[in-house]
């Protein structure tokens, strides 16, 4: 539980810990819930309540890559609904499903902040704009062909790389 030790000093530590767990394992395992409750002096219901409240936290192991498709209004205005239909058909999965080969997990998202270049898709932490169905197929093929491809930016959601000198 070094993840807990690394974050225990933070106020409101549960969310940073859950992000760190999900970065490490790809999801929040059921077994983590009683452990976190004990470590943080919370009830299991408290921890379960937080994990289940937030859309970002996954409860099952995902595929090797996460595909997030924006479903919000700006993307709708540029054909996001048709893009979603195309992706579901192409990958043969519904939202929150993982492809048979374990390559992709498909998730819906409400706004990626790329609303002037809609429709938007995020693959792992790479944002893509003006994604037509054909462009999606190219991106999926590139990602599948290059399994080690990761974004050039560091994974940023957990707390591990941030400045710690001031932590309380």
């Amino acid at each position, binding site marked *: 539980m070094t993840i807990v030790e690394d974050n225990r000093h933070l106020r409101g530590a549960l969310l940073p810990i859950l992000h760190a767990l999900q970065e490490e394992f790809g999801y929040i395992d059921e077994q983590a819930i009683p452990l976190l409750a004990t470590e943080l002096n919370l009830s299991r219901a408290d921890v379960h309540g937080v994990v289940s409240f937030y859309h970002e936290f996954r409860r099952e192991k995902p595929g090797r890559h996460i595909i997030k498709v924006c479903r919000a*209004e700006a993307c709708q*205005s*540029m054909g996001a609904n048709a893009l979603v239909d195309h992706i579901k058909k192409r990958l043969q999965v519904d939202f929150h499903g993982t492809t048979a080969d374990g390559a992709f997990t498909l998730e819906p998202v409400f706004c990626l*902040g*790329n*609303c002037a270049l809609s429709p938007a898709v995020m693959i792992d932490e790479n944002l893509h704009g003006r994604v037509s169905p054909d462009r999606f197929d190219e991106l999926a093929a590139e990602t599948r062909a290059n399994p080690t491809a990761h974004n050039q930016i560091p994974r*940023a959601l957990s707390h591990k790389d*941030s400045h710690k000198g001031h932590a309380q």
Partner: protein
Amino acid sequence: MSGHLITVFVPRDSAALSVGADAVAAAIRAEAAKRDLPLRIVRNGSRGMLYLEPLVEVETPEGRVAYGPVTPADVPGLFDAGFLTGGDHALGHGLTEEIPYFKKQERLTFARCGIIDPLSVEDYRAHGGFRGLENALAMSQAEIVKVVTDSGLRGRGGAGFPTGIKWNTVMQAKADEKFVCCNADEGDSGTFADRMIIEGDPFCLIEGMTIAAIAVGATSGYVYMRSEYPHATAILRHAIKLAYDEGWLGDNIHGTDRTFHLDVRVGAGAYICGEETAMLESLEGKRGMVRAKPPLPALEGLFGKPTVVNNVLSLCSVPIILDKGGEYYRDFGVGRSRGTLPFQLAGNIKNGGIVEKAFGITLHELLYEYGGGTITGRPIRAVQVGGPLGAYLPPSQFDLPKDYEAFAAQEAMVGHGGIVVFDDSVDMAQQARFAMEFCVAESCGKCTPCRIGSTRGMETLDKIIAGKNVDANLELLADLCDVMVDGSLCAMGGMTPYPVRSAVKHFPEDFRKKAPAVRVTHIAAE
């Protein structure tokens, strides 16, 4: 040009990256090496002309010259055309600052965005950065609050509450500890200004928050980021570390007795956490459930302590106000809407991007003079202003001036300045249904009108769309909207009816596609 290293700017803004800016930067570096031309590439923020991204700029004695949108395949041709000295090319736009879209803007909050290297303190200072904070460090708390009050700055997150009054409440509260929290949970579709300024000018936010902290007597602060913004989060964390290294954050800021510690926290995909009390719950590590007000967060906020909660754009407007004075800022704008707002043109729009203008500009100017109409070339049928809880407006209302009060009178809101454009292929009944569906997915569940009302609203709209008892169901929907508006605890349930009602009001024909109007007033809705 011997002895002078040419500087080329290729943005690192997420939107630019989403259309290939990294590959363009790599292609420029490779081509320069091949031709043995030494050059320096700066990864700046975006200038906000997102329709031109990736927008490459070259520093010349006359100023920065723009080329875009550039693909890697265009790069050898740009070198052949002599773009390093501002040579003509089909993708050339001349001097960046002379491009009409940019030139006509009034950039106060976004003054540095896209110009500087976002992770260079030196660059930030060279462009006026930290001057506001230096002034604030020499002022009393009450003097700082007065300058902000005098500026007329109102909360840019949506509600438009006067920032100076909020700060004054926190300043006067007595407590052993106070906080400044920045709401960077920019979840509204059609908005991206928070993300852009954090990626393009992160020190501006750090400076604004530090000034707020000094003004109210807070020693700690948090920026609440979205998990959908990993790139902005990484840049902000890096900038905070640099600010600590240079003595702009931490104990004894620049040799004074002031202290401010700043940290980043990341949400987890819950739209409701953009509501300030839900955000505070989330920062405390809990479910993002809305709190009843009072108590106001200004008196009992984070961990029960007095807390300033401001939006990114509000806090990023503070440095220039402290630098140039409250009057300077107040001189922009109309009525009770002072200063500027970075409007965001989004969705089906030809020239999407950031347009920072003083309040009072009309939707028509924004949509046609800046936006250039739709990208599909079809007529604009509706625009949604102020996010998923904002009204849909038809072209007959495009002359409305952008001003908090003028918009509120139409049940619309300026909100965070996002404008989403739809052409005439849009089905407004489906958009109304989506508003309810979104509320079903994102309601925190604390109050009944929002939690249950949204589900019933979606079901009722499904019946209307299917042509079942349309009149009776529209009446039922109107009643339900009244209950949600009047009975919800926060804006989530309280404003979800705005897009629904406005769609029914302005686009009634879309709700009667399946069935002709039949009077069924005596029959209860199914």
